């Protein structure tokens, strides 16, 4: 909790619209190093768009994003990845034709540098690099306890496990900032508990900063250090879970949609 003073990423007055439809309007918030930051809000509040802005998939029309102290120019997603931002998706976006192992190995792409020549020979430096990265991946497999599905094509896995593999793939990038888009959607209680534990462990032991979108309020309140609440693209509250929970606007927003 001590290292939380430093701001890792700041979103400043960001607005985003798609052909006239406003997805995000003038939203500002920051993510501090080492914290778990939750973004909540009713459906269509612009949460996923916000994540897409952060990792460079969408380019906001207005506003500024400061990452690690530098104002970030318009960038492409792969640049975000190389700067240490990883994410998972609301609807699992795994590489369905590949095994669990290969999926997570893809997460190591940025850490592998051997070119076509060595790859072709699959020998010497290329093989060494492959093995070094396999070790890292195996640590992740061990961490997420997915040993038994290592060589299973991910398309055949149940949803909960797919989510876990996707988290593994993001972890393989050794991210500084991890964006999780509804990591627990569609899971049963036991799977949710597991996922919570992984997220907490990650945050605690590897110091990974995490920004997550989640609907399960219980989970959000348990996990996160600070919460941003969005509604119709506007920020309506920001603060610790306790503060946010007591905010009348939040209560209204949630009661309004029948929660």
């Amino acid at each position, binding site marked *: 909790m001590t290292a939380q003073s430093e701001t890792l990423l700041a979103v400043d007055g960001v607005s985003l619209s*798609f052909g006239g439809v406003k997805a995000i309007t003038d939203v500002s918030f920051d993510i501090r190093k080492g914290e778990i930051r939750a973004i909540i809000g009713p459906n269509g509040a612009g949460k*996923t768009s916000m994540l*897409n802005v952060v990792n460079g*998939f969408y380019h906001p029309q207005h506003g500024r994003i400061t990452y690690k102290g530098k104002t970030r120019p318009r960038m492409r997603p792969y640049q975000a990845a190389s700067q240490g931002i990883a994410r998972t*998706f609301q609807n699992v*976006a795994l590489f369905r034709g590949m095994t669990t192992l290969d999926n997570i190995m893809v997460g190591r792409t940025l850490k592998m540098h051997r070119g076509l020549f060595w790859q072709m020979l699959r020998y010497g430096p290329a093989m060494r690099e492959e093995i070094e990265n396999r070790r890292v991946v195996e640590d992740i497999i061990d961490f997420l306890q997915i040993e038994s599905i290592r060589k299973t094509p991910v398309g055949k896995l149940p949803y909960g496990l797919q989510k876990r593999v996707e988290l593994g793939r993001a972890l393989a990038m050794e991210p500084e900032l991890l964006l999780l888009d509804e990591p627990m959607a569609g899971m049963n209680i036991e799977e949710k508990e597991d996922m919570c534990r992984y997220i907490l462990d990650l945050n605690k032991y590897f110091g990974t900063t995490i920004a997550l979108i989640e609907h399960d309020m219980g989970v959000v309140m348990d996990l996160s250090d600070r919460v941003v609440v969005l509604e119709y693209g506007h920020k309506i509250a920001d603060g610790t879970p306790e503060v946010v929970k007591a905010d009348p606007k939040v209560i209204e927003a949630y009661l309004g949609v029948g929660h």
Partner: protein
Amino acid sequence: MLYNIFIDPFVQMAQMPDLLVQTLWEGLVSGVLYALIALGFVLIFKASGVFNFAQGIMVVFSALTLVGFYEKFSAAGFSGHTAAFVALVLTAGVMFVLAMLVERVVLRPLVNQPDIILFMATFGITYVLIGFGEMVFGGDPKQMIASELFLPSGSVDVEMLGGMVSFQKIDIAAAVIASVMIAGLALFFQKTRIGRALRAVADSHKAALSVGISLNQIWVVVWFAAGLVALVTGIMWGARSDVSFALEIVALKALPVLVLGGLTSVPGAIVGGLIIGIGEKLGEFYWGPLLGGGIESWFAYAIALLFLLYRPQGLFGDKIIERI
């Protein structure tokens, strides 16, 4: 060199406007025919999401069938016109049977497969049609029975812009028939029950199912419609040159047309066809000689490619929005 590319052709156009008009007209006519083939593609793509590679071969196949039937009937002593129209009706029947077979044998078993699989399946249909067609009709080029179908021949020469511009009557007829055909299809889509159903299917398969439309039925209708379009195209094209499987390669020209117009747009197919037809003829006539001629074979694709880089979804295509 630069002069030859960028200035000289335009100078030529200005100096001999009659030639320009002639070229434009020829481009327009082949454009109409491209558009007709493309129309067949679009019909099928809209309704079933199948990129029907066989459309080109269906043109040839229908034309061959027509000529084949005509030969049989005239040999049996029918008069030219009677034989021709009986053959026309029978060919339409054959196209219907083909549509049924395609739906039954190919589409139904492959429902819900990825696009590329269906695409490949239409390759299979192409091969079957080529094999079957050649076996039945032989590989020799045939003469289209244009006059028997009351299609005009000869040409109208008009004096204009200081020269003579020659309009083939058959070309004029082709343009007219194509326009009628397109108008007819538009009416069909707007006014008939099946037409409306087709549009519903194009919008959403689920929605169509929920209003109680049988997808299988729709497919048959669409393939039949595409078959009729192919037949008309075949007659027109055949009347201008021979009927043979060499036409297949011309059919491939419909691809750049589609790309230009967008895979799902009927007006796109028409506009695209015209652009490609005219662009190709102009290119060949004015720039072709610089490159040694024969650029018609790829010029259309080059136009399409350049255009795609600017607008990947085509002229009238739906904007591709990537969601994650």
